[in-house]
């Protein structure tokens, strides 16, 4: 289990290779990479700055991973989230999960990402041609996280 918050970029392939090689009973590695888009809400985005709450960030993501581990039969989960200034096409976040089978790995990966978006204390400020603006939280993100409370976990295989 690992949570890393850092300014520097990451190598998703190398991280996943490490997870895959860590044990011989891994049958699935599911991952998600979030990327900076060049436009948002009708404005072109030149760059963005990600601020976070050191300490609480790591603690809250670890709590989300712990919940995923209770809910699905997964082996390991890694979250890397970048902070500081980022530009379009830059990677923001990696979530990678290993398990015996794809079902649990896919579900846990999506669960971790949905809860990260609504619980982990990060804030984005975009630089647009109209000036700098804080990104507003989306209702659709709350809905994405809420749907996990109405789904029953898959039985372990």
């Amino acid at each position, binding site marked *: 289990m690992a949570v890393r918050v850092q300014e520097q970029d990451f190598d998703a392939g190398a991280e996943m290779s490490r997870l895959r090689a860590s044990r011989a009973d891994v049958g699935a590695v599911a991952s998600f990479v*979030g990327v900076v888009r060049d436009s948002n809400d009708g404005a072109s985005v030149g760059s963005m700055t*990600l*601020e*976070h*709450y050191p*300490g*609480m960030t790591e*603690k*809250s993501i670890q709590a989300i991973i712990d919940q995923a581990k209770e809910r699905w039969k997964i082996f390991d989960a890694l979250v890397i*989230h970048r902070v500081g200034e980022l530009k379009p096409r830059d990677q*923001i*976040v990696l979530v990678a999960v290993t398990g015996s089978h794809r079902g649990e790995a896919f579900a846990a990966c999506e669960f971790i*990402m949905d809860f*990260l*978006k*609504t*619980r*982990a*204390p*990060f*804030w*984005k*400020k975009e630089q647009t041609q109209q000036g700098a603006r*804080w*990104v*507003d*939280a989306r209702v659709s993100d709350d809905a994405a996280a809420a749907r996990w409370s109405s789904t029953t976990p898959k039985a372990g295989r």
Partner: protein
Amino acid sequence: MKLRLKFFARIREQLGCDGEVLEAPAGVATVAALRNFLVARGENWQQALSGNRVLRVAVNQDMAEPDTPLCDGDEVAFFPPVTGG
């Protein structure tokens, strides 16, 4: 009672500071009471923290509710809804 306050993102910018150590007066025993106490400091504080704005509060780095009690030495953070990922 001493509280360590922290402000993030839009709220930090509106207040022009990222935190302070507050000697809270008697009666400021919950998150809601602390918020009301800060809002009463003036227009700037009202704009940043008043009830019209959706904001989140964490006590000792755990998400808190308006009725969450405060204790001496607590770290209390005010911030907007999160937008990471």
